[in-house]
């Protein structure tokens, strides 16, 4: 299929994804929800932090570690599980999956397109959460000290990694309706626990640290923290202080490529199995 066809599929799916994400409520309600949700999500951890540490200024690096991790983890939950939910929603709720499946579009590209709506919404949530952190909670941030090129590259690779992970789970979703939510929650919980989202991976047992070091999200969050925090202190917290930015970037690139290849293989295998087992148009009302 020509690149032009894939681009058209991406554009259409992105448009559809945005319509679905943004049109479920009146604009005012949607805007209100968009502001409240990310703030509420991060405030839970902020309150826990404040109970333990009393104030932000006592350990700004550690506060940034927790806050940035919690904020950017919203991409993980939103993008990964959003992508997986495309299969469930299109198959069972809209009942369009079979029509899309038998059309000439690549289902893989279509799902990536649908994910862009999730990425846009997650980005909005992260921006709102960051603004709240900086303006209300005193999160250390200086735009002049941000390593923007590192941040941009890390974001690009991080999103590619999250989309890959989402596609692998979407493949599994094609084969099951009943268990897809629990698989998502299980994977989400494990990644949250092992990738140093809110606490350094050094507090994990050795086997947990070993797994954490194989997950690209670990490197992605580390690079996001290092690029955004105005100073050196944050690099000492995550357990990756022995590695320079470029080394971690190369870890992220390598693990993302492996994840992408595995996800592609897994998706194609699941696609074939779903077609063999007749799962592509099953409606279970789950």
């Amino acid at each position, binding site marked *: 299929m020509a690149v032009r066809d894939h681009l058209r599929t991406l554009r259409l799916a992105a448009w559809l994804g945005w319509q679905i994400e943004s049109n479920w409520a009146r604009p005012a309600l949607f805007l209100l929800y968009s502001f409240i949700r990310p703030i509420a999500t991060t405030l839970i951890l902020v309150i826990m932090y404040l109970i333990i540490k009393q104030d932000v200024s006592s350990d700004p690096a550690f506060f940034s570690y927790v806050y940035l991790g919690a904020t950017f983890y919203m991409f993980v939950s939103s993008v990964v599980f959003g992508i997986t939910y495309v299969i469930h929603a299109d198959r069972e709720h*809209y009942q*369009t999956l079979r029509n899309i499946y*038998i059309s*000439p579009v690549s289902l893989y590209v279509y799902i990536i397109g649908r994910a862009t709506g999730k990425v846009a919404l997650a980005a909005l949530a992260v921006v709102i959460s960051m603004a709240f952190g900086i303006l209300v909670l005193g999160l250390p941030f200086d735009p002049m000290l941000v390593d923007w090129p590192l941040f941009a590259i890390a974001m690009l690779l991080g999103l590619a990694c999250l989309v890959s992970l989402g596609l692998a789970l979407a493949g599994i979703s094609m084969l099951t309706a009943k268990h897809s939510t629990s698989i998502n929650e299980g994977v989400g919980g494990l990644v949250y626990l092992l990738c140093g989202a809110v606490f350094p991976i050094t507090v994990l047992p050795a086997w947990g640290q070993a797994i954490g070091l194989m997950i690209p999200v670990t490197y992605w969050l580390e690079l996001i923290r290092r690029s955004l925090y105005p100073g050196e202190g944050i690099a000492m917290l995550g357990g990756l202080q022995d590695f320079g930015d470029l080394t971690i970037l190369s870890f992220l690139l390598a693990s993302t490529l492996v994840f992408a290849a595995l996800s592609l293989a897994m998706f194609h295998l699941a696609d074939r199995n779903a077609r063999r087992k*007749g799962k592509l148009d099953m409606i279970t009302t789950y």
Partner: protein
Amino acid sequence: MSSAIEVRSLSRVFSGRKEIVALDDVDLTVEEGELFGLLGPNGAGKTTLIKILCTLLLPSSGTARVLGYDVDSEAKQIRKRINMVSGGEISGYGLLTIRENLWMFTQFYGVQGKVAKQRIDALLEEFGLEDKADVKLRTVSTGQRQKMNIIRGFSTDPDLIFLDEPTLGLDVTTSISIRNYLRRWVREREGRTMMLTTHYMREAEELCDRVAIIDRGRIVAVDTPAGLKRRVGNDSSFLIETTPIDTARLSSLTGVRGLTARPSNGHLKVRMVLEDESVIADVISAVVAAGGKVVGLSKNEPTLEDAFMHLVGRGLE
């Protein structure tokens, strides 16, 4: 004329707690330009066959070629040129308007924007949905959603379209207008092929150039509707109206090829195919013996339903 569909020794088994043989060694050829019907009762394997042909499901064994391409290894080539609509289908994105839903699907098939718009407008008018075009899909009735899906199938102008029970659940007027459109669609476009599944005898008889009768996963016969009716041969078709009785005793009579019974105004209308006219005397005796009273009796020209009963040994119900 080349074949639009070629199916050889096709089987499909669904494994699970209980193994179900949905298709059993099916052979079938549909020529380009044909309006071909698959007629059979629920669970006969019609939908399974359609799903395999439109690349949604893989066969367990055998081969199927659509427009010259293998459904397993060359699905991409097939998908560009086909479409499918299932009866009772209410799929679609409720947050989009009917026009947006349709437009999006035409774009998935790469239909040029201007052409897509013209085609969608024409089809909306044809199916009486033009006043609902810019209404969100979630607000329209089930019947209107079904119509939108039929339009979706034709809006990509496929070379081959699969329609699985297209008029299922629709009112009589709408069903008639859809049948008229289907007939015109095939006739006015050279080389366009349609495969239609139905369990409405009349629909198959009215629309199809040829019909395959499918039962329990096997193709029992393939012929024109007239040819199938001729197969009734020396058999006789009778319609008996009686007071309600248990028809099981009638089915087991020697010489009764098949029967269907439908309640009507407090009575029972029993349509039956008999090997010989003389068998009717035994049938009437059996009705009386079962406590029934014959209130009407007529001999009919064989219909497709009679042909079905003759071939399968029972009615579609």
